[in-house]
């Protein structure tokens, strides 16, 4: 019986395992040093905030794995020997594979800041990061101030987490507005204002130069590039993530920033595949980046690879881009592409509600009026409807006219679509 070994029990590896089991009788082993059972990484923040216990982040009951004959090995892979088709574990045990799936995920970016390895300096990616956070920042007595570096999704989550324990937070972002490398400025500004309204000391266009230690080797302050010293007991490094691949250095598998894969998710070595955050596409799909550290991408790569492994060679060929997040109290969803600045020949239509918590931005093609993508804040939208509209190349006018058909807000919520329509028609009059 063919033995499929998967390194990493995140969403990518686990999805691959589940689908392989659905399609075949192959022997499946998942190896993870992080946790015995699969948990939802995106939910780690809720454990720190006390919304859930760690066990609630585990999507399957513990007997699920044995029932589905998926073997779990709680150990760390230190080397992969592709010639002998073997992985070596820290415990000394070796595991032979017929096919190997690398789904090792990400680690936090470190850009060589002085002091980046001090005690009290960390990112937030793994379960171990969360455990470390409980030691470094359990409350506002041990941690009198935290500094968070990097205006992205993990940074804002960490800020919300610390705020839930009344720890004062200084949040340094390099850009002009929160996540404005991705969000158009009006969206970024609204989120910046919302973050500040939660008593986060958000500093735009500010970067960290170095981290200062006290006598015991623990962080005591940071110095910004503008020369300001900010005393703190904790520094959160949230300036993005990169693939977790250092253990593959001498494996012979071709690496760049991530593990290089073709459209079939095959690495340079036969019978070795890579999926999820750690995979880097030689040939990126459409407008997508070569490395996508996104939950949904990991899940979909797992689904696609399971087909290939089980004898139905399937290309990594994802559908329309979508994503979602939550910034404190504001939910965000996106379908299709909305760039921080409209692409050549495109324009943005912005609408902002007077409550400053709801907004819509639509990117469209000026000459063909084709709808390119939408960002919504504080309004839930139907994935299925936008997926269809994108496939049908609807025009922005049709989309605006029918927004209520795509609304997924709970019952009795007021829907601002008439307001949006009016704003759109006056916006178009000005432009014409």
């Amino acid at each position, binding site marked *: 019986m063919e033995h499929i070994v998967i390194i990493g029990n995140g969403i990518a590896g686990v999805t691959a395992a589940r689908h392989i089991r659905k399609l075949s009788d192959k022997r499946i082993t998942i190896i993870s040093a992080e946790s015995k059972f699969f948990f*939802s990484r995106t939910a780690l923040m809720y454990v720190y905030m006390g*919304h859930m216990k760690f066990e609630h982040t585990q999507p399957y009951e513990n007997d699920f794995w044995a029932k589905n004959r998926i073997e779990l090995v709680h150990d760390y892979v230190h080397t992969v020997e592709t010639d002998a088709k073997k992985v070596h574990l820290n415990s000394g045990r070796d595991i032979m594979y017929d096919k190997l799936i690398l789904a090792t995920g990400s680690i936090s970016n470190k850009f060589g800041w002085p002091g980046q390895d001090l005690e009290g300096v960390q990112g937030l990616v793994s*379960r171990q990061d969360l455990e470390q956070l409980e030691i470094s920042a359990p409350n506002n007595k041990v941690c009198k101030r935290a500094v968070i570096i990097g205006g992205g999704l993990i940074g804002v989550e960490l800020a919300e987490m610390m705020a839930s324990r009344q720890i004062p937070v200084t949040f340094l972002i390099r850009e002009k507005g929160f996540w404005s490398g991705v969000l158009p400025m009006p969206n970024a500004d609204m989120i910046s204002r919302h973050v500040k309204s939660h008593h986060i000391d958000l500093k735009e266009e500010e970067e960290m130069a170095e981290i200062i230690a006290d006598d015991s080797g623990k962080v005591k302050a940071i110095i910004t590039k503008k020369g300001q010293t900010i005393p703190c007991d904790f520094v959160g490094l949230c300036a993005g993530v990169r693939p977790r691949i250092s253990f593959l250095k001498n494996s012979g598998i071709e690496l760049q920033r991530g593990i290089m894969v073709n459209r079939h998710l095959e690495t340079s070595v036969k019978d070795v595949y890579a999926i999820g955050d750690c995979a880097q596409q030689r040939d990126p799909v459409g407008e997508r980046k070569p490395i996508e550290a996104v939950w949904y991408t990991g899940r979909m790569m797992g689904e696609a690879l399971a087909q290939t492994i089980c004898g139905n060679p399937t290309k990594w060929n994802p559908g329309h881009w979508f994503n979602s997040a939550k910034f404190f109290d504001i939910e965000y969803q996106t379908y299709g592409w909305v760039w921080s600045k409209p692409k050549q020949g495109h324009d943005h239509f912005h609408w902002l509600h007077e409550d400053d918590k709801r907004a819509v931005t639509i990117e469209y093609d000026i000459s063909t009026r084709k709808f390119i993508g939408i960002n919504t804040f504080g309004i839930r939208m139907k994935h299925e409807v936008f997926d269809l509209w994108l496939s049908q190349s609807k025009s922005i006018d049709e989309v605006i006219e029918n927004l209520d058909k795509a609304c997924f807000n709970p019952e009795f919520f007021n829907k601002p679509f008439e307001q949006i329509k009016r704003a759109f028609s006056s916006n178009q009059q000005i432009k014409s």
Partner: protein
Amino acid sequence: MSIYQRNMSLTGEPPKALSTTEKIASAIGIVGLFILVLAFFNVSLPWKGAWLTAALLLIAGGIIAFAKAQYGHKQAGIKNDGVWFKDLSSRGFWGWVLAIFLTSFYIVLYFFPATLGQGTDGAANTGLIGLFDPLSYLLKGQAASQWFVYGTLYTVAILSFGIKFILKYRHNSYEVIRTGSVMFFQTTFAFLIPEIMAGLNSTKDLPYYDLKNIWPLNYYLFEQWNVNALLVNGSLGMTMLLFGVASILVITPILTYKYGKRWYCSWVCGCGGLAETAGDSFRQLSDKSTSAWKIERWLVHSVLVFAVISTVGIVHSYLPKNNIYKIWEDGTVVKQYETFLTQSNFLILVGVGLTVLFALIWIFRRNELKQDARYGAIGFLFTILAFIGIHFMAGTDHLFFFNHGAVKSAYGFLIGAVFSGVIGTGFYPILGNRAWCRFGCPMAAILGLQQRLFSKFRITTNGGQCISCGNCSTYCEMGIDVRSYAQKGENIVRASCVGCGICSAVCPRGVLKLENGPLEGRINSDAVLLGQEPDLMELLSNNKN
């Protein structure tokens, strides 16, 4: 492995401490409770009316002030910070203390009302019940009873915790309107209207009748004393009796078809009302395991079968053999009716009714039921056999091997008191706020069957947006593992769902929506998550079955 060897448990720290305003608010509420405790120990309080007013206002005021301190200064949004750190809401020490206090209160209330000061044989009330006399006289011109005290406290709890809940979910119109609804139905239908009506009819003894309390939740509706009391009250009583029958046979199925069982369980019902308001802090304690789900299905449907058989047995026992129904009082017939409902006609009617119902389900919903249908068939067969048994027992005062009175009081004791009160409410801080609704309520069982089989209601999931975080499952008071459906892209169509809407509220990615929609495609177990190109999606969908 050094970097991974940190044996820290993942339990967190505050925000669990109370702020100063929260402490003051708690103190106010406790002073109110303390007045009730003083009354309980028969400390003589002059101007009872004033003391009672003070006690109720302090309790309500304390709860509302606490809620304002907790949520008022924060922006609208999900307020679950520290839920699992706080002792009270995570089965900690204070959780157990509260559970023991509530349980003791229910035991005293149900079984030792004299301890509360209930005057027997015409003696005046004393103690806690005596304290409530002024309010009772005001509403209905009679002395209070233990049930009046309970009803008053119950209403105060739903109103003040209702305000707390509204503050907590003020950004969510569904929750605000729904909570307004349970507060309204409790205050009017369950409390004011029946009490005032009882006062207006005091000479004729019209029984206390909460119109929204439907059989089989209201298990004594068809007992002889209640039916007679309604019948002797002429057309009003007759209307109420007919309304009671229509509620379960006509009104309930129509509303459940259109809106799901939520129209009752989380919008109208008093038990549900208390669970949603006072019990909200405990919703995360429900057991989500598949084994709990299995226990739930066996237990709640057994209670339903028990309720049906015992009601049929009781009604059968007082129906006439011929077609004249007589109401006796002190040895004389005070009223008599000509009726088609003789003992045997009644049994045949109910038997045929159930057979038709079962046949319809079997014919039209066979595929959806699969293996559950077998259990349904067992329950049905058991019920019909019981009816045959009842027929042959006619003339004796026995239901099978048990005395009718014994069956009736066993049901009242086990289900009505111990299950719904002592365990159902007393154990909020241990089993979660819906243990009774989930495991014991026969009304919920009937509505659940209707909801699963003949309803437009479902919770839909949004394409591929689920991140399996688990907030929905954690905060489902009915112990439904919502995530297990959402992460497969399937609609949630579960008999037990009461439609409280909290799964949708706590979802950080906008994945869940409560909806009434077309029957077609309502149950979509071949659904897959969106995101792939269409061919692969179709393949995944085919692989699923």
